[in-house]
């Protein structure tokens, strides 16, 4: 009876979304169909291995085990991500999520509940494969090396589930499906360290402990960073309108370059050759990526935050400024983007390689380039709808850095071109359409174009500086805040 009480207590304290989704998962006929097909497939594999030529080979057992393991892994990936995505997007389409959000559940607990219910399917799927695992064991296919594969698969499954939940939160079923399928197929290549290790194991190559730990650390760190990012993006999407929905995401994005910086230092201890320029480039790449993400999110933000955010606004000037930068509202995002792009510049003095003119120019141009695109993204869409002529003229001016190099060879190195591409969607677009000729070195006209656009960017930034100032002035706790009636204890659930 102790066991029953324990499980009852566990069920009582469990996330309601988890309980609900678990019930739905095990009643879903499609899932049962997929699992049945999977079992039949495994059964077919077993037959082939039992009666085929593999039986006589020494590696037959390990290959059989790997097939079973990966079949379960792929099924888990598909089931976790697709089922989470489909259920969530259906809830969004039916507006059922609205009703869930009207309860006492926080958006974070909704996501966690969905993640739990997706992940709980994994042991269930693998438990179905246990008989085949037993067969692999009797075929002497389970070795220590092959068991070491399992830690590599766990973070991928976690990410697949989170990705599915994020895709489901879009609310558009077609886009969600496309995103999830793309993530399933292309996500694997992202985790090449793990797959590399798997290949080595499959080929029977010995792997030393240091390499194993390094690869494992890489995968776990990257998965953790990406996982938190996916979680925060989902949180932002499903959070109520006019709440400070971007606050956590912006703080995380701001911290991300520092986290990666801190993450790369231990890697330095593991590797004998540490190239500072590569280190700098990677850092710049992260900063560029973060700025790009900020820009993408900022175009969906209103210019300023809502009353709920203002109510939380501190009164001290510095705190108020920080609150303004990190709170919802694209003006804050623009300033934050500008700050982030300067983070790699801040580490430049600590580098031992020479501060060549090229690097400084790259850095400055990148900063301006980022600002320019911030302005395009933040204002271009609204301009487009209003069809005002002067803003369109300014927007065309900002196209110069993309247009100029389109006709001549680029002078930017491939690494910096990647940085540009990540910072500037416009640049990436032109590069994609003009083909690989732009990737060649030896042309200086790109710098000319970029520097020419800097003037336009500067002017535009000055023009919009009043927008920032006005937004900051507006970002304060309302004067009547103290007189606003607060909820009664009953409303607060006390």
């Amino acid at each position: 009876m102790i066991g029953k009480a324990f499980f009852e207590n566990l069920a009582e304290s469990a996330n309601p979304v988890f309980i609900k989704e678990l019930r739905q998962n095990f009643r879903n006929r499609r899932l049962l169909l997929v699992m049945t097909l999977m079992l039949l497939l495994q059964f077919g594999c077993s037959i082939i291995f039992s009666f085929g030529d593999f039986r006589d080979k020494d590696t037959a057992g390990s290959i059989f085990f790997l097939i079973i393991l990966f079949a379960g892994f792929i099924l888990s990936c598909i089931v976790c991500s697709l089922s989470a995505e489909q259920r969530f997007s259906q809830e969004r389409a039916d507006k059922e999520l609205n009703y869930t959000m009207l309860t006492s559940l926080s958006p974070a607990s909704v996501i966690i509940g969905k993640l739990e219910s997706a992940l709980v399917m994994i042991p269930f799927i693998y438990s179905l494969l246990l008989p085949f695992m037993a067969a692999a064991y009797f075929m002497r296919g389970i070795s220590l090396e092959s068991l070491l594969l399992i830690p590599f698969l766990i973070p991928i499954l976690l990410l697949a589930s989170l990705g599915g939940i994020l895709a489901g939160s879009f609310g558009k079923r077609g886009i969600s499906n496309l995103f999830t399928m793309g993530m399933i197929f292309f996500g694997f290549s992202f985790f090449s360290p793990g797959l590399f290790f798997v290949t080595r194991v499959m080929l029977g190559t010995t792997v030393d402990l240091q390499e194993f730990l390094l690869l494992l650390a890489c995968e776990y760190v990257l998965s953790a960073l990406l996982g938190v990012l996916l979680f925060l993006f989902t949180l932002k999407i499903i959070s109520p309108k006019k709440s400070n929905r971007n606050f956590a995401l912006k703080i995380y994005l701001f911290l991300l370059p520092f986290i990666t910086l801190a993450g790369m230092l231990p890697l330095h201890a593991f590797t004998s050759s540490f190239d500072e320029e590569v280190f700098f480039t990677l850092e710049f790449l992260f900063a560029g990526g973060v700025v790009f993400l900020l820009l993408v999110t900022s175009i969906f933000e209103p210019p300023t935050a809502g009353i709920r955010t203002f109510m939380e606004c501190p009164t001290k000037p510095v705190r108020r400024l920080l609150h303004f930068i990190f709170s919802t509202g694209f003006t804050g995002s623009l300033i934050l983007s500008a700050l982030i792009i300067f983070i790699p510049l801040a580490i430049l003095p600590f580098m031992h390689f020479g501060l060549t003119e090229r690097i400084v120019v790259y850095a400055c141009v990148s900063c301006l380039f980022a600002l320019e695109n911030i302005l395009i993204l933040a204002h271009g869409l609204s301009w487009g709808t209003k069809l005002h002529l002067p803003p369109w003229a300014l927007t065309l001016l900002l196209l110069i850095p993309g247009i100029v190099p389109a006709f001549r060879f680029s002078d930017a190195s491939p690494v910096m071109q990647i940085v540009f591409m990540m910072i500037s969607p416009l640049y990436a677009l032109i590069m994609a359409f003009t083909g690989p000729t732009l990737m060649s070195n030896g042309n200086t006209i790109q710098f000319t174009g970029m520097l020419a656009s800097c003037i336009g960017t500067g002017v535009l930034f000055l023009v919009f500086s009043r927008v920032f100032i006005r937004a900051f002035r507006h970002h304060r706790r309302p004067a009547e805040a103290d007189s606003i009636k607060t909820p009664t204890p009953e409303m607060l659930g006390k």
Partner: protein
Amino acid sequence: MKTEVRNVTRVFGRTKAVDDLSFSFEDGNIFGFIGPNGAGKTTTIRIMATIDTATSGDVFYDGVSASIYPDAIRRVIGYMPDSLPSYKDITVLEYLDFFARSFGLRGAKRTNTLNDLVEFTNLGEIRNKLICELSKGMKQRVSLARALVHNPKVLIMDEPAAGLDPRARYELRILLKILAEQKKAILLSSHILSELQDICNGAVIIERGRLLSAGTTEEILAQVENEEMQPANAVPYGTAADGPVVPAPHNAPPVIPAPGEPPAGPAIPTGKAPAAPAVPTGKPPAVPAVGQPAGPAVPTGKPTVAPAGEQSTASAGRPPAAPARNEHLSNIVIKTPSGEAEPVRLKLLEHPLTRSAELVDDNEVHALIGGNPAEVSAAIGTVFAAGLTVISIEQNRMGLEELFMRITQKKSSKEKRP
């Protein structure tokens, strides 16, 4: 709990779905939310339910802002949408259990709450059915149970009767009346105005996002009167043009004969006698009255008549969710077009919200009555006394609809004026 919608405006792109809308209602009331398609009802309801936010303005619950403290507000409001998704993989009880858990109900409290809800909404037989297997009416009951799971003080319902058969509508009405008696404030939107008329004691009428009229039924009636919304041929009781005034007896129930039966005689018990014959002659006389019909539509020939005294009592100590009809008649006027004292077959059509009733013979209006319930009843009794035969007494179920149409027509005619 007082619910106030203050100057709410909601803009979608260039479309103003709700335009400076303000109204309020308190607990124990059932308020109808009326408007044509695209009037902004659902948008307003979504803002009130904290699902959406207003572009400007706000909704207050006991003075607490819904836009600033939506999490707190959600604990005291229940939202019932117009439809429930068809889940193929969750049963009714599991669905309600999820929401009970989500509101923090644990253990025995949750079990008891769910049992009570299942009993209240009559879901016992279908509690273990999948939601996709339910009919529309059953789904609405599940939806109502979900909205009530945390015992909210304010219930906001979007088209709760849409797609329901008459029986399901009737059941829903009963549930709503019980909820109103439990001092819950209820706002429900509907296109079926006759449904609202039976249960609402107030209404909010909007069109194109703008408020046309709002308040309790009495307030709306007063507004309509002020705006000269009364029928053109209605003459106030007691005016010289209508002959002598006949005060109505208030204490005696009328006796209304069935068709074919001889009139039971004027049940004009005490009080003042009629000053003129009940049968209209050249100049329409005022008619002394007896009781008045109450309750739902009375079948032909066997009208049920409530004592006037009871009506007055009910009116004084009226329960919050009591139907509005028959309680707003204040004056008596009877006009007869022919002026002849011959028996006619009459039908009583009541217009409670416009404080009038009609005695009609087929399509011809024989009398237009306005007055309090007892006076109307007395007038009818006098008609019987004059040898007239009443073939039926029917409730006019188009009161709100008519009111809505009149208000919107008046508004559009105002807009047309330069």
